[in-house]
């Protein structure tokens, strides 16, 4: 299995732990991720002009060399998906192509890494690689942009793919009413107060579910729920202390990787209790 790989900006910064775990886990599974050369930012949610934003993603999609384009980030994924749909309009495509050296034909399929695992590899294949069934309870948190506004693999209202992945690793997904509710990430910088209110609801509900961790698929959700968890605790004078784990880290733990090989020591919320429960060392 081979994909063109679009890592996105966060992998070089706040989501370095995600990157470490992706490299480890995908390497072991024999899924080749060929990084796009000289890739550019997708514009996240902060390039207001639609044509420019579509152009940024068109340049990325044009570099796929006939492969499907995998990405680890929900924001990048949603932008690639939206651009892909928008670029089926040949007028827009022609206009955007004026700016591109490598013209885009409109035929690349964007895929989130979760989709690559759940759909392309298949969970039975993943289960074969499980050395240490996890025996923990985990919150499957999808966030917004993995399934909305569009995706090719799961329901936008009640997605199940991450739940199923958790099961195949030997863990138990808890029922979580907020699995697709917004964490507030996109407004963190400009409206932190409101962003923390949204995160608080998610974290309190996750804590009450009795889960050992929250599993995420997006660097922005991770930043908001892990790195900003302390800010939520002090704003509302509550104790959460709940590890937030990328799904690739959860896979790595079940596949028998050492937590250090998965970047778990780089989280702001300590992960040692979770690792101890799984029976690993940190």
């Amino acid at each position: 299995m081979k994909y063109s790989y679009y890592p996105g900006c966060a992998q070089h910064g706040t989501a370095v732990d995600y990157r470490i775990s992706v490299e480890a886990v995908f390497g072991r599974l024999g899924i080749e991720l060929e990084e796009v050369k000289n890739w550019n930012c997708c514009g996240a949610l902060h390039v207001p002009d639609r044509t420019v934003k579509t152009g940024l993603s068109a340049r990325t999609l044009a570099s796929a060399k006939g492969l499907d384009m995998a990405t680890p980030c929900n924001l990048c994924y949603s932008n690639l998906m939206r651009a892909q749909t928008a670029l089926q309009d040949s007028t827009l495509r022609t206009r955007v192509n004026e700016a591109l050296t490598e013209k885009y034909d409109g035929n690349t399929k964007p895929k989130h890494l979760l989709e690559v695992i759940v759909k392309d590899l298949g969970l039975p294949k993943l289960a074969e690689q499980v050395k240490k069934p996890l025996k923990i309870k985990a919150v499957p948190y999808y966030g917004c942009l993995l399934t909305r506004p569009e995706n090719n693999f799961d329901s936008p209202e009640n997605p199940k793919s991450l739940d199923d992945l958790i099961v195949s690793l030997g863990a138990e997904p808890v029922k979580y009413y907020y699995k697709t509710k917004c964490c507030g990430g996109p407004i963190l910088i400009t409206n932190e107060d409101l962003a923390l209110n949204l995160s608080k609801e998610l974290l309190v509900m996750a804590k009450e579910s009795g889960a050992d961790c929250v599993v995420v698929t997006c660097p922005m959700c991770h930043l908001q729920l892990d790195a900003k968890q302390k800010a939520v605790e002090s704003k509302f004078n509550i104790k959460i202390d709940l590890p937030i784990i990328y799904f690739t880290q959860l896979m790595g733990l079940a596949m028998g990787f050492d937590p250090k090989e998965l970047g778990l020591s780089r989280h702001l919320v300590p992960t040692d209790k979770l690792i101890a429960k799984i029976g690993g060392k940190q």
Partner: protein
Amino acid sequence: MKKEPILPESRDTTFRDQVLKTHVGEKIPTCIQCGICAGSCPVSHEMDYSPRELVRMVQLGLKKEVLSSNTIWICTTCFSCSVRCPRGIHPTELMETLKPIAIAEGIINKNAKFDNVFSSVIKNNGRASEFLLISRYSMTEPRMIKQLPFGLEMMAKGKLPLSIDRMENTRELEAIFKLGEKGESKIENKEIKEKDREKDSDKEKEKEPQETKMQENENEKVEAKK
């Protein structure tokens, strides 16, 4: 809350038509005001107008109220409303469409500033290094200094590198950003203005003199900005 009556002079059909002509505009007239967007929105309680109200206001052409409301900036872009709308209207994309129009009208707030910083960082470097983004933005928003301890914590974990992540060359990005200079809203805006002017000259006498004058002022303002 006491609702103020909407006076004919506060309705701007040029603005309405400008929005209706964009890629999200087509379905806006079909809104049935069911409110599923407002009910799905995680932040509608903080908005000046809920997404449902905003759609209606666009239909009515309430330009000033729409563009100066916090609604379009507070939207977290979660798309809950968009996937649920029974009419296939995409309120999230409507908010996105209204942002450049608001900026072109001279609306400045911290969100617009951040978007501006973000765009310029990408245009120049091709990638969004968090450290560069935050430090640039902090220059326009001094209150960001409060985030310093958080930044240091992130640095200690190796999550906020000081080195700037750059593409090998950003030549193509300049061309992509140039696409925006003749962007969707601006092109269509001009087309509509021109059409309106023709219409105006056709039926001069029908309009109240003051309204025509206001319209002309509006046209001049937009032209001057180009």
